[in-house]
């Protein structure tokens, strides 16, 4: 029984990397940022602060829900569901002090936004990146 439970747990945690390719956070190479740690990513994406170490205001980008990446991203990042994330943002939006990330409909649009905006940060699958963006954080680390 114990062995079976362990097996199931292994499956649960091992499944996404096995089934899908790793997710990465990419930034504009001119952003001045080489790497970001997990706390940085959480603070930026969860609206705590947006100012990067290079002095550039970070512009996090969310993908539309139907891409499926957004749910995977938050789960991997803070282990929360999309409903929780939405509820979190709901409390903050009324005070107006901070805003949730800008939502783009597609990966391409996100890529495009990153390329075109030095502060932009977007998450996507490793397979979808190109040379124009820099991976600053790898989820699943």
């Amino acid at each position: 029984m114990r062995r079976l439970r362990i097996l199931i747990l292994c499956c649960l945690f091992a499944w996404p990397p096995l089934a899908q390719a790793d997710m990465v956070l990419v930034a504009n190479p001119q952003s001045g940022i080489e790497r970001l740690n997990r706390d940085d990513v959480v603070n930026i994406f969860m609206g705590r602060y947006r100012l990067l170490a290079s002095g550039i205001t970070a512009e996090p980008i969310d993908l539309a829900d139907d891409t499926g990446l957004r749910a995977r991203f938050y789960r991997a990042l803070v282990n929360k569901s999309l409903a929780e994330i939405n509820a979190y943002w709901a409390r903050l939006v009324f005070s107006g002090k901070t805003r949730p990330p800008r939502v783009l409909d597609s990966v391409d649009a996100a890529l495009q936004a990153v390329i075109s905006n030095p502060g932009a940060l977007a998450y996507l699958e490793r397979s979808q990146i190109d040379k124009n963006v820099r991976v600053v954080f790898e989820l699943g680390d």
Partner: protein
Amino acid sequence: MNSATSNSTRVHWWHGILARSLMGVVGIALLMGIAASLLVGQVVGQHVQDRALVRLGELLDTVESTVSVACFTADEQLASEVVQGLLRNTEVRRALIRAGDGEIAGAERRQRPPGTDRQMNDPAGSMVKRPIYSPFNPSEKIGEVQLEVDWAAVDAQVRESTGFATALLAVSLGLVIVAAAAMMLFLVVRPIKMTSDRLHRLDVVGGERLAMPEGHERTEIGRLSADINQITGRLVEVLEHERTLRHQQEIGQRKYQDLFDKAVSGIFVADRDGVLDSVNRAFVELTWLPEKRGDARQKLSDAGWQDLEGLLSIIRASLDHSDESGVAEDDFLLVGNRGDERWLRVAVMPVGDGSVQGTVSDVTQRKREELSARRLAITDALTGFANRVGLHRAFADIGAATAPFALVMVDLDGFKRINDAMGFPVGDELLVGVAARLREALVETDFVARVGSDEFVLVLAGEQDRKRLSERIQRLAIRLALPYDIKTNAEHIPLTVSISIGIALYPDDGADIQDLLRCAELALNFARTKGGKTYQFFEPALQEAVEHRRRLEDELRSAVSSRRLQVYFQPIIDLRQGKLVGAEALLRWFHTRHGPVSPDVFVPLAEEIGLIGEIGLVVLDEACRHAALWRQKGYDIYVSVNISVRQIPDDLPHETVREALRRHKLPADAVAIEITEGVLMGNVSVAQAWIEGLRADGLRVFLDDFGTGYSSLSYLKRFTMDTVKIDKSFIRDMNADNSDRALVDAIITMAASLGMHVVAEGIEDFQQLVLLREMGCHYGQGYYFSRPVAAEDFTATAMRINAELAELCPSVGESPAKTL
């Protein structure tokens, strides 16, 4: 129960169970209420505080995630929102949110109630702090929420809760008290009151029972009622029983009172000193008790007791012996005022309180009868003298007499014959006459008693001198011998009687009356044997003679019973034919010590002591037996048997004689009966009838000892005899020429002329034989022929006699055929 009791047991309400228990309950409830409200205040206060803190904690819980978001993003606006929300809670006075180092929001309630600044007093308990952690990293503290409790609000809550609880408690207690009071009232007080009221009205004696309060049949009150009923029931029973007893007692007492009042016997209750406690009517009548005088108590001594001391002494004796039956009684003589007497029997017994109850009955009649009976018992009715008992009594009363006296026993000679011949009335008259002369002859100090039919005893006081006594007695004898004029129905009979007298002297001859009487009687008997008409003083020799005679009597009795008396036979000879024709049976007594005893001695003795009848039968039987024997042997002889006057007629009835003849198969002429003149002198008619009877049977009757007694020729004429036996005294003294010869000759001649045979007794020599033959005497007996011989020697003697006679006097046998 009466009204007094019910009044005394009246209950005021403030003394009642209800009031007491209510006061108790109220007091306890008050104490409990105060204590409880204090406790409740404490507990509720603590509870409210705790609840407030808990609620604040919960409040913080609800805002925690929001505050966490606000702190995470340092969103002051959001934090401020939250603070405002927190302040809406009345228990929060101030709210503060810190993020990192700085306060991002804070707010405070404006209005503060005065005087309730618990912040100062209890700063630690007044702040609730909660650390805030990052929503994305639970280990990272990013801020803090602080709430300050509004104690004024909390205290208000506490007061409200405490007040409510206290009010609730008070109401509950009040309700409980009311309920308890109601229960007490209805369950306890009222039933008890009801029972009590009913008890007061209850008529227990009338049999009423206490009703049980409804619904209390099984409660303690019900049981109490039942118990009361039971006890009253028992009480009523006891009362009833008591009443019945008292009733019975009353009836019993009435009965006894009736008995007491109406008893024939006198009844009294008296104390030791004779003071009367109560008496009944019969007692008063019996004792002639005087009327009560004033208030003084009557006493036994008021009545006329002759022996008052004796009466009191039996009362004391009864009281002193109360451990035994204590009954004491005696007869007491009562003498009335007029001198009349009454004998009363008084019986007393103790009643237990130091007094006695006594019964009194009149025994006068019985007493008089007793006295007269006692007098009769010692008195001779005919003469009025004392009788033998009276004589003894008189001597007993005298006791040991010291003065000498003479005891004189007087006996009338031949009184029995007078009685027999002339009848008892004549005899009694004679005795009365004698008594009268005796009485005249006595002096004051003398005493006389009649001790037998014709025996009087005179006690002559002071007489001791024999000479004077003799003279006096001779005068008395002469006086008594004078003729008596006896009156019978029709005629006067002159009667003369001689007396014999025996005299004994006190104290010479005897120390007591018994001895003296015996001595006097001995002397009297001696005088009588001397032929009467004389007196005799007692002599010791008389006593000896009497004793000798008594011994002889005993020996004679012994001899008769042991057959030591023997019958001898003396031959009777036919003088003319010279041969033996008969034998006279003669009794011989060979005394073991004295040798042969004369019949002249022992025959009278046997006659006196009544042995003669028995002896006579023995002689008759022996005579018959031997006659039969000899006749068998060829001796044709008869046997003559002497009969005493005492045997006629009862000791030798004709039938006995006939029976003896039959037994020995003898003809009547083989036995002859010899009687003396004494037989003829007694009761003539009886003797005559007896003799005639014998002769009618064929027996011959001889008249023995003829010539010694009266030899009255009239006897010979009146009694028909076969033979006369001439007494040996005539034959012995008979000579050829003396008067005796003439007498014998006359007798023989007379007998021959009367047609009687003659037997001459005591022929001792040949001369007499010859003389007698010459005078014409037919028969003879005597030593000349033979002495009386024993029966076994008789045949030899007979043979010798026959032989000798034939040889000695051949002339005798000359003409035998003619004479027979």
